């Protein structure tokens, strides 16, 4: 035996090194060693009440390294490298969206642009995309019947194809008679120097059978003001059927919001705005309810409105996060039962970054947790200072 080792020692060393490489490459030590000792600590309520007990933020490891990390009760969650499949759709469409909306009809996504807009309901998938093709503004439409798997792709001309103006597809819905409703923003160039634009939200109804526009109506028009986004408040690429949509536009001198009924096109104002100085942080439209939240300092004001009438549906709930000596706070998500909020205080000695889930009716805290760090005083403060909370608890 010893003669064999003497004979093969070089190859064995080399193979040994290869195994060392494999070990080093696979070893998780790479991710965790050198990590700050941060974690999420439950302060109130029952952790089991929360479906997904993790928050995400960025951590400034060093001058040029900010890395997105997740926190849960055990510690840091590192983002794992995306697989080839994930790289295909992320960040265009989240894996969840692809699964829920396009499962079984993945081919519908072939060749679609990542800045296009989608619509999905039980019977149909639709896609609309505005392109500026040889001096013409064109609306590319694709429609797929989920049952018959019949897909038809066609193009229609936008009414105004003046190149100095600009079309952009905002939303996609479906009319009762099967037509496609496309809501596009049309920014008209007022003066030659292209410094000021007038914006109008246009509703195009398209007959997929005839492959032509059946009606064009202007929903709302107005002058663009800085920091105020005129038109549809959108936060998704894939629309489900939405009986009502939220539109922000100038309203007799001030800035206001309207509820837009998809089917009829009726606009009705919603009395959201109070002093006009508040900072809205959440517009969550669910069927005919709008969950609206705004912040002033550490106080979060939550209220929901009936989009049909435009009137408040419930009393305004006030959550004063200063009780947790937070300085700033915001609501991030809502569902029929609760709201998810974030509160922070960066200036405090031990910087505070907290998340909570609040009962929609009573405003009472169902669950609350804060980011905490372990180690020496100095280590804790440094870790908390370098961590910026980005997304709160998902509902």
């Amino acid at each position: 035996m010893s003669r064999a080792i003497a004979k093969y020692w070089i190859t064995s060393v080399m193979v040994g090194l290869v195994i060392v490489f494999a070990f080093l490459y696979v070893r998780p030590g790479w991710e965790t060693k050198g990590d700050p000792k941060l974690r999420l600590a439950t302060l109130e309520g029952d952790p089991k009440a929360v479906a997904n007990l993790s928050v995400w933020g960025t951590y400034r490891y060093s001058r040029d390294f900010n890395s997105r990390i997740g926190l849960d009760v055990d510690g840091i969650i590192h983002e794992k490298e995306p697989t080839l499949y994930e790289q295909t759709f992320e960040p265009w469409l989240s894996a969840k969206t692809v699964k829920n909306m396009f499962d079984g009809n993945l081919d519908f996504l072939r060749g679609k642009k990542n800045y296009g807009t989608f619509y999905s309901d039980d019977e149909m998938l639709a896609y609309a995309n505005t392109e500026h093709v040889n001096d013409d503004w064109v609306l590319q439409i694709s429609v797929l019947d989920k049952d018959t798997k019949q897909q038809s792709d066609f193009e229609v001309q936008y009414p105004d194809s003046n190149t100095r103006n600009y079309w952009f597809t905002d939303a996609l819905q479906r009319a009762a008679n099967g037509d496609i409703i496309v809501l596009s923003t049309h920014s008209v160039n007022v003066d030659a120097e292209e410094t000021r634009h007038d914006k109008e939200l246009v509703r195009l109804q398209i007959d997929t059978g005839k492959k032509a526009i059946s009606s064009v109506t202007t929903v709302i028009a107005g002058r663009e003001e800085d920091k105020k986004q005129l038109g549809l408040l959108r936060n998704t690429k894939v629309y489900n059927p939405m009986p009502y949509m939220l539109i922000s536009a100038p309203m007799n001198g001030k800035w206001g919001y309207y509820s837009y009924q998809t089917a009829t096109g009726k606009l009705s104002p919603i009395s959201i705005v109070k002093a006009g100085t508040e900072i809205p942080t959440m517009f969550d439209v669910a069927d005919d309810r709008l969950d609206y939240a705004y912040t002033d300092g550490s106080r979060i004001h939550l209220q929901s409105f009936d989009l049909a009438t435009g009137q408040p549906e419930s009393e305004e709930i006030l959550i004063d996060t200063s009780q947790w000596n937070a300085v700033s706070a915001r609501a991030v998500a809502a569902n029929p039962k609760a709201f998810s909020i974030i509160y922070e205080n960066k200036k405090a000695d031990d910087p505070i970054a907290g998340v909570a889930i609040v009962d929609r009716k009573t405003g009472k805290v169902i669950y609350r947790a804060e980011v905490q760090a372990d180690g020496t005083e100095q280590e804790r403060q440094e870790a908390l200072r370098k961590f910026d909370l980005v997304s709160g608890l998902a509902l």
Partner: protein
Amino acid sequence: MMTFWKLLNLEVKRLVIPFVIMAIMVAAVQMYGAHAMARHTENEAKEIMAREKLATVQQLEELHGLASYADVIRINQSPWIILPIGLCIAFLLFYLFFVWYRDFIGKHSFMSRLLMVPASRHHIYFAKLFAPLLVIFALLAVQLLVLPVENRYYNSLLPDEMRVEYPLNYLISAIPFLRKLIPLSAEQFAFNYGMGIAAVIVLYTGVLLERSFRLLGLFGAIVYAVAAVYIATIPLGLGDHWFFYEKARLLAGIISVIGALSLWLSLYLLKRKITV
């Protein structure tokens, strides 16, 4: 099977000296680089603190953040790291030809002895394929061993409060070159090295084509290599009608087929057509 181990052992023994030289060179140059960059960081910090009249490093850290080893590498795409690796790659690329031609040319053509070993000739092929691969992965091991040492050495040269801790795989993602060499996603790693090994096999096929048909073989080898590369790039040319992961899988499939075909062709040439 013993034949394979014995031939592999022979090939590895011939690579020992170059391996030791390369390993020492990589470690030494990178460590010196760490030393140089630590000096640079310290001077830069002193400058900023003087200019902006910051009393403590703490303030510097809050205003600008402290430069970790990964930061300074990323900023100037540190030649200290890339150069030694580049030299190793250059040598290994040369060696992929030399591993065959050393046994053919010269007064003592060892290849005829190898061809007369009473075992299937694919042992010769696999010995000459695995030996360089073993050395490549051994060098990668050296690199992964040395990186944390460099990081610690870099920190050791800085005053205590200027030291920064971070997960070391950021050290790899700091340099695009290193990220290709050691991709953090296992899938990407398998993909890159699968392509690499397929390329080596295609290269070996070219060499064996030349060794079997001399000038005609050389011409054949060039045509073969060009065809292989062209076919390998077809998936990239596909329009956006294909999903990215489909293109990737198609590419992996094509590469595997090219690799398998080349492997079969190489073994056939070695068995039937090679001439000493």
